[in-house]
């Protein structure tokens, strides 16, 4: 019997090499990909509860008087993320078979498999060496994945890579400093030693945590690094974007829950309000992330960029939930991580189906696709209802938990930010619905068909999943609580239907909401059926003050009001947008540097930002190495 852990990590890797050999058979390649993710999901399913499963190898070197060991261990938190990530991957893989069928494209599959290999490695890594190696592997392979051999995506990928480099260098620096402190590379030992460090040298401890935090923030696109998703998500292959948004944005969250959270909770840090100062900084960063992501999403015209910012905003919610340091907040954050996986895969897959059929990413060039692609429309509709956190679907319970946690910790202004972001979410979510799926159907899309069956199946499964989680939050809450128990929190086993709050008389029976919703629907339907029947008219039969739009040469595309959907709102924000635009900052900064170092200006002529980031990364490594 081969070690289960080893098998799980090796199979994607072996398949990756195998697929490179048979790259021409795109159908076989993608089916293999599906099989691997199916196998992983199944294995992970069987691994639930077997927390003593480990695999390790001694390297035979010694640093800091301890043996270097590469080890993987099944742990509740890693299992939680890995399992749901691989289920999501399985659904996306099914979608990919159909998506890449026409293009005969399979060159991304091997890299994707390596990415999955790294994915498992990160979630089950037991020591920092393994973690770092896998992290680096993930950064590199995702760089190639985003670039996928095209020119414009390569630019975005370069930006992503240079940021990743900053991240990995700070991570390396952090790992080395912490390992020097704890004399071992073991993660749990390093947590303990950092907790001890807080008692003696507060500033140094904060600095060490900050080094890790920068890495995790970059990977999850938390505030100072919120800008890469809009570039990378938009340019990456359409079937890979869901993976990027659902799974890869969670690495940072995983890191925070794994490493930073236990320290903040257990260390002896002076309290500030009901939490402590680093947690407050985390909360404020989360709040800024979600508000900024929301506002930027509202103004975006490219639908993939829009949802990239939406992902940023959702990560902001999760970070806010974590920052409460309370059980309910962490429950909410973990629950929302999974909800975000489900919701974003629904949304990005339906958009990928739209792009697959139309080849268009700009929202204002589309319209009226609901009448041609009703299933895709329904998936998207349920997706946005969830994403907006509206009750009978899954996004609600997790947002509710986060809001309750924030309120019970008296983090008033963070709650306001959260409410702002989730109301604003409504604006951008609806904008895509109105622009892409509703309105007039442009002539060139008159003969568009529904997405093919293999795309429809995963989309339908995700749709049902959203409904199921929405009605029975226990599906996710039970594993969440199991994870929390495994992490040493004092929580009860979760109920199937009810989520608990810290307030009095405020527990919420989510299933009841569904029943009430159904009751409301029944009453509304009675009114609807009781009334006189309606006459169907053509889509272009609109009230236009008696004019015929075609008399004025107005095509359906131009008739749709979708380009400057929130123009007045945008004008309110224009002065602010100039201030916060990272690109402009980087460009301005780059120009100043260019002026100073005129002789070296060659380096700055193209994509100042990216190269500058690269230099910062290198500089951090050099300076950091020197100090240590």
């Amino acid at each position, binding site marked *: 019997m081969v070690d289960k852990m080893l098998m799980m990590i090796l199979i994607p890797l072996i398949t990756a090499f195998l697929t490179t050999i048979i790259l021409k058979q795109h159908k076989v390649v993608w089916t293999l990909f599906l099989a691997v993710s199916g196998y992983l999901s199944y294995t992970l399913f069987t691994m639930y509860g077997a927390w003593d499963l480990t695999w390790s190898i001694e390297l035979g070197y010694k640093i800091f008087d301890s043996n270097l060991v590469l080890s993987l261990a099944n742990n509740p938190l890693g299992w939680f993320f890995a399992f749901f990530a691989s289920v999501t991957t399985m659904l996306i893989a099914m979608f990919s078979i159909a998506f890449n069928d026409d293009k005969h494209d399979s060159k991304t599959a091997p890299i994707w498999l390596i990415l999955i290999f790294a994915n498992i490695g990160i979630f089950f890594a037991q020591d920092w060496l393994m973690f770092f190696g896998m992290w680096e592997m993930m950064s590199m392979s995702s760089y190639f994945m985003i670039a996928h051999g095209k020119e414009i995506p390569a630019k975005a990928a370069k930006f992503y890579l240079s940021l990743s480099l900053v991240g990995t260098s700070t991570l390396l620096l952090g790992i080395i400093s912490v390992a020097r402190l704890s004399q071992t590379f073991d993660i749990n030992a390093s947590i303990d030693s950092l907790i001890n460090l807080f008692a003696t040298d507060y500033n140094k401890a904060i600095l060490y945590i900050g080094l890790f935090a920068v890495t995790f923030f970059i990977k999850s696109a938390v505030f100072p690094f919120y800008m890469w998703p809009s570039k990378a998500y938009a340019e990456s292959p359409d079937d890979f974007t869901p993976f990027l948004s659902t799974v890869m944005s969670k690495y940072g969250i995983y890191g925070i829950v794994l490493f930073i959270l236990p320290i903040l909770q257990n260390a002896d840090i002076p309290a500030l309000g009901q939490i402590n100062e680093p947690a407050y900084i985390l909360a404020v960063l989360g709040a800024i992330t979600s508000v900024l992501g929301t506002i930027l999403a509202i103004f975006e015209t490219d639908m993939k960029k829009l949802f990239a910012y939406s992902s940023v905003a959702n990560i902001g919610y999760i970070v806010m939930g974590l920052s409460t340091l309370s059980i309910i907040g962490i429950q909410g954050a973990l629950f929302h991580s999974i909800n975000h996986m489900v919701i974003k895969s629904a949304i990005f897959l339906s958009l990928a189906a739209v792009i697959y059929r139309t080849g268009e990413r700009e929202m204002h060039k589309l319209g009226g696709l609901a009448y041609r692609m009703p299933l895709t429309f329904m998936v998207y509709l349920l997706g946005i209802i969830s994403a907006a956190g509206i009750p009978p679907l899954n996004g609600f319970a997790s947002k509710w938990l986060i809001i309750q946690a924030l309120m019970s910790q008296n983090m008033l202004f963070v709650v306001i930010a959260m409410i702002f972001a989730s109301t604003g979410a409504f604006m951008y979510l609806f904008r895509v619905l109105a622009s892409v799926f509703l309105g007039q159907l442009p002539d060139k899309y008159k003969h568009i068909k529904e997405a093919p069956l293999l795309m429809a199946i995963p989309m339908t499964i995700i749709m049902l999943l959203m409904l199921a989680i929405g009605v029975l939050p226990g599906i996710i809450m039970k594993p969440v609580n199991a994870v929390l128990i495994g992490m040493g929190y004092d929580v009860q086993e979760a109920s199937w239907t009810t989520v608990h709050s810290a307030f009095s008389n405020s527990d919420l029976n989510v299933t009841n909401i569904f029943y009430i919703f159904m009751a409301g629907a029944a009453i509304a339907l009675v009114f609807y059926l*009781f*009334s*006189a*029947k309606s*006459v169907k008219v053509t889509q272009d*039969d609109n*009230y236009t*003050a*008696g*004019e*015929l739009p075609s008399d004025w040469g107005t095509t359906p595309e131009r008739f749709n009001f979708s380009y400057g959907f929130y123009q007045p709102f945008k004008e309110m924000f224009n002065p602010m947008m100039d201030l916060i635009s990272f690109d402009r900052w980087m460009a301005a900064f780059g120009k100043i540097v260019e002026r100073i170092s005129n002789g070296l200006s060659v380096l700055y002529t193209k994509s100042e930002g990216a190269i500058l980031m690269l230099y910062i990364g290198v500089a951090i490594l050099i300076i950091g190495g020197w100090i240590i």
Partner: protein
Amino acid sequence: MFNINSLEQQDNQDKLWDKVINYFRKRSLWMLHYCTGCGAMELPPVMTSRWDMERFGIGPMATPRQADILLITGYSSVRTMKRIIRTYEQMPEPKWVLAFGSCTVNGGMYWDSYNVINNLGEYIPVDITIAGCMPRPEAILDSMLKLMDMIQAGEAKAFRKYKENYAYYKANQDRLFMERGPVLESAALRYVHEETEGGEA
């Protein structure tokens, strides 16, 4: 339950039910005032505190989709007529048309104008016409009350006339809007400019 065809099958159907529905219809008349001419000026007094039309449940609406009555307030030129017809056809049934002033009956003071239609009833079915140039607000209010009586009695069915005699209305409309030759022989006197500059060089 509610059946739109109840008006058509009135003889076979339960009279009482229609009467009930007609009551609700007459007590809630929403109008689209198509301000073609000077008649629109007489509507504000009818709507505001002097005569207050709203006490009968009559109110202005912004679009034909919501409206029950189409008010043609005064003369309508050929160009306007096209918009009126489109607006009328966009209204859901049951719908009624109220024509204001002499202009909509026989052209009024614009009877011999080259671009004002004479009799509105030739192009769309009119339920009630109000004579006068302009009709007084009392007359407008009176016509509304008359329309309400007609609705209650089930007499206001001009919109069905439009369906039944569509060919007649359509022919009249086409006479205005379809591509046509000159109406008068004098059209031959038109000056047609011929480009001469090009030839000089």
